[in-house]
């Protein structure tokens, strides 16, 4: 296997994992962000802390906790494997690790966007007869698109770059669970691997910068539409 194809494999896997992680995390993050921004309930502080936990814990610890809960010998991990969903040492586990690690960043961006929407607009929609879900779908959601995009980029970038929890939970198997950061780390362990590492560093940078530019462009278009004309 050539060094180059290993790099492309790692890039492909990272993109695949990051896309899945982002798609799966957005709806849940949006819901949690809305709960934290707009609702008062028992345990809100607890939920807020739980969401932010992966941000403050060492990623290796998060990965180890995932291994304890979803490992092949853990009850939950075994149950999931019985229905065909293997997580530990599998690319699906890399998706889970990316979701967990990116979740606080997504929720934070979306929560700030929701809090920036004037609740008086939502009240006005309610007085016009719109049920709560319609108020969210027709008023809140269109107004927070820029914040959602920001959250998507943060989550995607985090998923692309996640290293500690991923390597702990799914290891570093070339072609199976070796994501771009893992591959860079591996290359740097081999004498003379710097050139290959540099290739992958460039790949990672191009993806990250493109994601930011794309979201900026989309957000600006949405903002211009709201500003009128």
């Amino acid at each position, binding site marked *: 296997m050539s060094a180059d194809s290993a790099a492309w494999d790692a890039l492909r896997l990272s993109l695949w994992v990051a896309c899945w992680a982002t798609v799966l995390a957005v709806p849940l993050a949006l819901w949690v962000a809305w709960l934290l921004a707009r609702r008062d309930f028992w345990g809100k502080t607890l939920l807020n802390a739980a969401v932010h936990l992966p941000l403050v814990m060492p990623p290796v610890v998060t990965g180890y906790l995932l291994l304890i809960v979803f490992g092949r010998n853990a009850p939950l991990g075994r149950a999931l494997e019985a229905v065909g969903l293997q997580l530990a040492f599998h690319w699906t586990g890399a998706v889970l690790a990316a979701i967990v690690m990116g979740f606080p960043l997504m929720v934070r961006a979306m929560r700030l966007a929701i809090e920036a929407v004037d609740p008086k607009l939502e009240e*006005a929609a*309610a*007085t*016009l007869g719109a049920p*709560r879900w319609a108020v969210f779908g027709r008023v809140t959601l269109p*107004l927070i698109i820029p914040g959602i995009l920001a959250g998507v980029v943060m989550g995607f970038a985090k998923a692309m770059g996640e290293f500690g929890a991923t390597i702990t939970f799914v290891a570093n198997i070339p072609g199976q669970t070796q994501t771009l950061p893992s591959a860079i780390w591996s290359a740097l362990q081999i004498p003379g691997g710097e050139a290959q590492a540099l290739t992958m560093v460039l790949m990672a940078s191009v993806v990250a910068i493109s994601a930011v530019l794309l979201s900026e462009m989309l957000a600006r278009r949405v903002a211009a*539409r709201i500003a*009128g*004309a």
Partner: protein
Amino acid sequence: MSLSMTLSHQFADFKLDLSLETGPGITALFGRSGAGKTTIINAVAGLLRPGAGRIVIDGEVVLDTAKNIFVSAHKRRLGTVFQDARLFPHLTVAQNLSFGSRYAPKSSQGASLQDVVSLLGLEDILGRRPATLSGGEKQRVALGRALLNHPRMLLMDEPLASLDGPRKQDILPYLERLRDGPLGLPILYVSHATDEVARLADTLVLLQGGTVRAQGPLFEVMSDPAAVPLLGVREAGAVVEAEVLSHGDDGISTLKISAGTIELPGVQAAPGSRVRLRVLAQDVIVSLNRPAGLSSVNVLPVVIDAVHPGDGPGAAIALQAGSDRILARVTARAVNELGLAPGLPCYAILKATTVAPGSIGR
């Protein structure tokens, strides 16, 4: 159509405690800021859950804290027009309007999009977004959006307060059309501007410090001397109905009121139409004898109906002028020296009187 409520709500700095009823037409809630006006609107709209209370709209109990009934805002079918318009910034004017009609009950009768667009003069701005509209335009769209929702009643929370003079004049005629039009929609109208109230209201509720201090037909409450401090001494004054008789070449018009005729400049309404006149209490002078050689020609024979001493050096006097009642503000010293007392016939000199601008016949 009727609305009745009792409300009690404790805020950090004051307590709202009142009960009131409204009928058809426009009921104005008047009070200084902090009197509890917006709280009442929010409670009726379902945006605030008061500490205790009961609200009945057309026989339907939408709030009864004793029985734990609370109908949420989106099920109350009340159109609310807020001071700050609250148009949806991501939607065009047309889309904002259709947001209103989208949630109107399928079977309901009411204004169509065409009706509303022409009533409110929205033809030219349908494609625009709220950020590009003037304050007056925003309020017209907000009103249209509420009307298309086919509400049982309109709640208007100082809809003109954020507008400057000319913009107010833009909207007032639309509100009058609404009041007098075929929709016949009852309106609960919150205001702290006496000129708006004088021009629009059928029923007036005066609020102070969270309680109702006076309520009744506009003409009665406005001519109640006890209401003078509530309305403010410079703003207080009776509203009387007049019929325009003729317009002179010199710009002076002759109007007929129950106590006689008066002459006023600047009347726009056509002869034969009825207008509302505002007779400010501070513009009325009381004289025991029929005055002669005055620059004012508007002198009416009146009988003193009530004398209401104020807290300071002033006093408010109610004067029966024909079938109308007007107010005069004099000093307490004048009351003593002239012996002003109920039953005394005298003359009222109207220094200045304004026609509630653009006021049209009822």
